[in-house]
């Protein structure tokens, strides 16, 4: 079986991001890393592959030269192949444009005879957190989609996927080919070993960039304005909800709101 994992390089989310004078995030001193949800996706499919005893995992990213290190990280923890896409159309993309770039890139690979039984994406990226790319990609490819997977296993002609729901989880069966977006499973991604990192350093990175991309709409947020915090207000933190409600009513009565 062949699997494709779409990964994104993001600023380390454990560091507080400050804004430059123009309101754009100051990312100069922040280390770049693979989006956490994408690492969960890679770990999940690596476990499926290990259980099956066969399969090939390719990681794909859209990013500049620095994204090579993200791909090498993936190669050291389970991926067999890595590919990168980058040209002017890829800069400052929003979720819609990104899904179009991925769709066109993957379509070309399919035309060239490649086959992907499952395409995995992180549920969302930790920088922009739109959570749309996986779903949009599935729609364009016409593939079945399962979002928020927390575990999966190969099953007959598809996969059995445990999907996180508001009340817990449910198990869905999905046929190949499909797109699966991955949430946080109850395990952590493996650590790379020194041997696997050294091996990853020598592995080739394929270039899947197309000559041109048709991107229909691309308005991405570039800067933020932090509005001043509202002054006043009062925190109500009573022992339980009932007491908090009573306190809130009492305050509103006192202030003649009620």
């Amino acid at each position, binding site marked *: 079986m062949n699997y494709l994992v779409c990964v994104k390089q993001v600023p*380390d989310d454990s560091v507080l991001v400050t804004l430059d004078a123009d309101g754009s995030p100051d990312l100069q001193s922040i280390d770049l890393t693979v989006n956490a949800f994408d690492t969960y996706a890679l770990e999940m499919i690596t476990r499926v592959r290990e259980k099956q005893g066969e399969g090939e995992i390719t990681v794909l990213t859209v990013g500049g030269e620095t994204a090579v290190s993200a791909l090498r990280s993936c190669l050291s923890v389970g991926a067999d192949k890595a590919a990168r896409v980058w040209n002017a159309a890829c800069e400052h993309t929003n979720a819609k444009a990104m899904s179009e770039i991925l769709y066109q890139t993957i379509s070309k690979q399919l035309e060239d005879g490649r086959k992907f039984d499952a395409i995995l994406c992180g549920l969302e990226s930790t920088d922009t957190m739109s959570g749309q790319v996986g779903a949009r990609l599935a729609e364009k490819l016409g593939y079945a989609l399962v979002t928020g997977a927390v575990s999966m296993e190969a099953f007959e002609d598809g996969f059995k996927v445990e999907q996180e729901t508001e009340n817990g989880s449910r198990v869905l069966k999905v046929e190949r080919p499909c797109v699966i977006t991955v949430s946080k499973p109850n395990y952590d991604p493996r650590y*790379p*070993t020194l041997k696997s990192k050294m091996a990853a350093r020598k592995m080739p990175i394929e270039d899947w960039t197309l000559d041109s991309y048709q991107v229909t709409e691309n308005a991405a947020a570039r800067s933020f304005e932090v509005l001043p915090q509202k002054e006043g207000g009062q925190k109500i933190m009573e022992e339980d909800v009932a007491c908090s409600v009573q306190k809130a009513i009492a305050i509103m009565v006192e202030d003649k709101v009620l």
Partner: protein
Amino acid sequence: MTKYNAVTEEIIQQIKDAAPGHVLVGDAVNEDYAHDETMRVETVPKKPDVVVEARSTEEVAAVMKICNENHIPVTPRGAGTGLSGGAWPLMGGVVITTEKMNKILGYDETNMIVRVQAGVLLATLAEDCTSRGLMYPPDPGQKFATLGGNANTNAGGMRAVKYGTTRDYIREITVVLPTGKITKFGAPVVKNSSGYSLMHLMIGSEGTLGIITELTLKVVAAPKKTISLLAPFGKEGDGLRCVPRMIRAGLNLEAAEFIDRVSADKSAAYLGKEVFPKVVDGVECEVYLLMTFEGRTDDELELEVERAAEILQDSGSADILVADTPALKKEMWSARDSLQEAHVSLVKRTCSFDITIPISELADYMVFLRGLADEEKIHFSCFGHAGDGNLHIGYYDDSLSNEEFDERIERVTEKAYARCKEIGGVISGEHGIGFERAKYLPAQVGEECIELMQGIKQVFDPNLILNPGKVCFALD
């Protein structure tokens, strides 16, 4: 034993006048002020009569003066995270806590120093330094201790192998003496050869000579790049014997910790995840070395790691796991930081040692300690700072009665300390003596040394009111 006076209503009023609005008495005194985080103590915690939440050096001085004049025992306190009972008010009286003196007073980045109040937490300063591209190197596992507390025990931590201990980062301190006088020791300079270093005498004195209220600390430029490696070993001795080789090779080693199998299992049970894998490449792991290396560039770091890998593999490491992203580094080191917490949360009674020995003796001493556990039929686990020989040892067995446990621990302690002394070690590397280890100190340092310590104590504190029953004056 020194006789102290009771805290009368009149004295309480004087203290309230000296520190208006910052004095707790009666039911307002929380039970937490009776102890710190020390485990296995036969002594029943005694609540202090009065707690002063000091806001300034002058307030501390005014209260000290009142207590000295009235022969009231005073126990200084930081965040109460000590592990040798230094903050236990054994004789009741007054506790002066510097917790509310928690301001970072300012950086002087030309001279690479920062001035802080004693109640600033280590975590607060570390984070603030990071945001400026600086680093305050002392890195004890307990990040929520105060910097005043760190100075009082000369706390060390993970980075001691490269950077040394708290002592190496203090330039000047403001101290309130037991008489209530305010003085400064040291100076904000690099070199100081001007008379006896009373500052260094004060560091590690565990609040028995004076109360530190402000500190001027040295900071360094934060390392540009770091990488952490976890090397599991099938044989404990192989792992521990590898550490001196790494140091001798001149590697840019910021930290080198070891974790034994039992401690790793406790970490997995406590955290609910296995950061230290039990089996690697078919090898059952007995011990782990967790290391951080520094470098200025990625290439430099890569070279450093390759040199380290050669030594680790040659020493018998089963494999080497790499934490090169902030998330992985955080996960590995958080697991290391939580070992003590994991240990105390999973056992009901335990004793905990803070022995430090020459690193050349690590492997053999561990064999000796395990032998003691077998001899006394008691459980044993250990982790610590492999790079500086500081071991955090736990002997425990919840199936024993309190009496049986105490008897066995007493025998184990005496034998462990005696052997430690024979091989050139000390009974505390960073937790301090407090009152838990006070009775063992004379055997460690000798009678002459104890007499000198007692003489010094009496020069500073003629009425012996400050932190009674600690370090060189054990209670009878």
